[in-house]
């Protein structure tokens, strides 16, 4: 497994919000150790009679020793929350928040340059590792099965679709990482592919990309030169009209290299198994592992 393990202990930033509460409960049910919440102004209270709430991440970390943060705070405050977590010494930040302005993302990327903290997201479903019993995010835990396939994706529900296909074929997952639908993700395909390649608990990887940007091109280069484990890839958006943003902020065809066709061709050349139909992802992995 990558990014998380049995020692992962989590602070939820914005835990007293409605969505954050709902998902924190689901994470705890799945087995995640949520040890603290942070909501400025509500320090000293207890969330759902079980988790202490602090005014700052710094305090929450000092009192509980948490190493990971899960962020649900609204977009206008999310950049502040990411930087607060980094400054407090959190090593993994998972940011679920959607609709963060690009300028803010430029600024936190710049601020975190040279620091060791890893940000996953924003605008992502989070991370789940069935073997570790750890879920830091909003994905439905029940569709996952412990196993040895890694999943990395820019999408949310399309990832659930892939995972459900795998689980139905009795193919479990080591870790699933949603890197998010924004143009400037904290963690990209190459970062996650590198971790999966080095991970003893992962035998093969499913990669779900989409139109827009150049992350898949970089992934293709990486697969060609650095990956020995098999990769099955699907790129969403082959039928999307150029110049139109398809839901995700980053999903827009702006030139020949950001089309699904061109990304698929590069991944194929790099040695990945590229499937054209999203319904074939599970069976493609099954035939590789057979």
């Amino acid at each position, binding site marked *: 497994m990558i990014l998380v393990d049995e020692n992962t202990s989590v602070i939820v930033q914005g835990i007293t919000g409605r969505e954050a509460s709902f998902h924190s409960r689901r994470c705890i049910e799945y087995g995640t150790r949520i040890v603290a919440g942070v909501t400025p102004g509500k320090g000293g209270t207890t969330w759902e009679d079980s988790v202490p709430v602090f005014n700052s991440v710094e305090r929450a970390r000092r009192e509980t020793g948490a190493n990971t943060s899960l962020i649900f705070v609204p977009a206008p405050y999310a950049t502040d929350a990411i930087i607060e977590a980094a400054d407090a010494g959190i090593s993994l930040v998972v940011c679920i928040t959607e609709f963060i302005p690009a300028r803010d993302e430029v600024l936190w990327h*710049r601020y975190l340059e040279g620091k060791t903290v890893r940000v996953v997201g924003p605008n992502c479903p989070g991370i789940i590792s069935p073997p570790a019993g750890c879920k830091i995010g*909003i994905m439905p835990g029940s569709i996952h099965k412990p196993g040895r396939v890694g999943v990395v994706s820019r*999408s949310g529900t399309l990832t659930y679709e892939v995972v459900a296909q795998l689980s139905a074929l009795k193919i479990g997952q080591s870790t699933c990482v949603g890197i998010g639908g924004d143009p400037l993700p904290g963690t990209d395909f190459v970062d996650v592919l590198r971790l999966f390649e080095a991970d003893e608990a992962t035998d093969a990887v499913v990669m779900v990309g989409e139109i827009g940007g150049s992350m898949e091109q970089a992934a293709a280069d990486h697969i060609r030169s650095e990956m020995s484990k098999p990769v099955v890839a699907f790129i969403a958006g082959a039928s*999307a009209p150029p110049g139109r943003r*398809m839901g995700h902020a980053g999903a827009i065809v702006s*030139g020949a290299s950001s089309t699904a066709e061109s990304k698929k061709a590069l991944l194929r050349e790099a040695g990945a198994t590229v499937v054209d*139909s*999203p319904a*074939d992802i599970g069976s493609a992995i099954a035939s590789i592992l057979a």
Partner: protein
Amino acid sequence: MKLHEYQAKELLATYGVASPPGIVVDSPEAARAAAQTLGGSVVLKAQVHAGGRGKAGGVVAVEGPAAAEDVAHKLLGTRLITAQSGDSGLPVLKLLVEERTPIKYELYLAVLVDPSTRRPVCVASARGGVAIEELAASHPEEIATIIIDPLTGVLGYQARSLTAHLGLVGKLASSAVETVRGCYRLLMEKDCSMVEMNPLVVTKDGRLLALDAKVSIDDNALYRQREITAFEDKTQIDPLEREAEELGVSYVKMNGNIGCLVNGAGLAMATMDLVSSMGGEPANFLDVGGGADEATIVGALRLLLKDPNVRVAWVNIFGGILRCDTVARAVMQVHERLRPSIPFVVRMQGTNADEAARILNTGPMRVMLEADLARAARLAVATAMH
């Protein structure tokens, strides 16, 4: 959010970037008066949210106020179909009447956020007026890029290296440095996705002017750019897309006949890809998002059914936070209230899919349930062709 050319130029002017003198008009009479004021020799430019206006006949040079009135009469009230406007074109309700500028040469300059460096970048070329994507592919050496650190902004040496690449010296070079800095400040202060001048021109009398300008604003930042939201021109947005925006769902109109309703952007794209690969044609992209409630889904289905091309509605849901039974209830509600004449193919997986199936099985015959993704897609395609 896209801005019109005249709005982009207004913004640029406040950041010290000059354009040719111009007046925005919405009637032939006003065009005549504007041409008179500007000295007679003018260009009329249709204000629509799409590139490729010149080739489509939306940019016309005229001599004299009478000719300006005549051309304005022909352009105003029509729909301009360009390579980027979609098949039905965009309404021409405003014209920018601009003084004709004797051009010495054309340049390209743009500032945008670059995903690969995660920084703002400024891109420039001495070859303006061409498609930058094509130039990047054929002559990459002709494009100069500077990567800007948001901590420092555009540094003097960076701006100088760009202007040197553009072959500018003396007064023009310092004017170009100011232009680069102005564009960068505009990008950051007004949360632009892009500021582009194609072309930026050097006039025969030695001035640097933005002859065309394109500025778009990051939708995620509109909450803090209130004065810019006043620039929004709803006439340039497809009526169904406008309705979707108000409903809080993401909808992109397309030309096919299979109406798709999906939760999640990636799955919505994959759903369209799947029907396309089977020979079907999606009528739209429609992502209701992760946390939609029953009312939103009813609204989204209503929207989907308003497209007269739609011959089958394909609902593809992977239930997570959004429960399948919520969607099933919305489908039932739409059938009871609107009695749609077209069939529905419904595919649901995940949270409460069994309950959803139970609800829909009591529903009308026109709702076809199919749990398998590929089989459901095939059913939707076959139904649309039938």
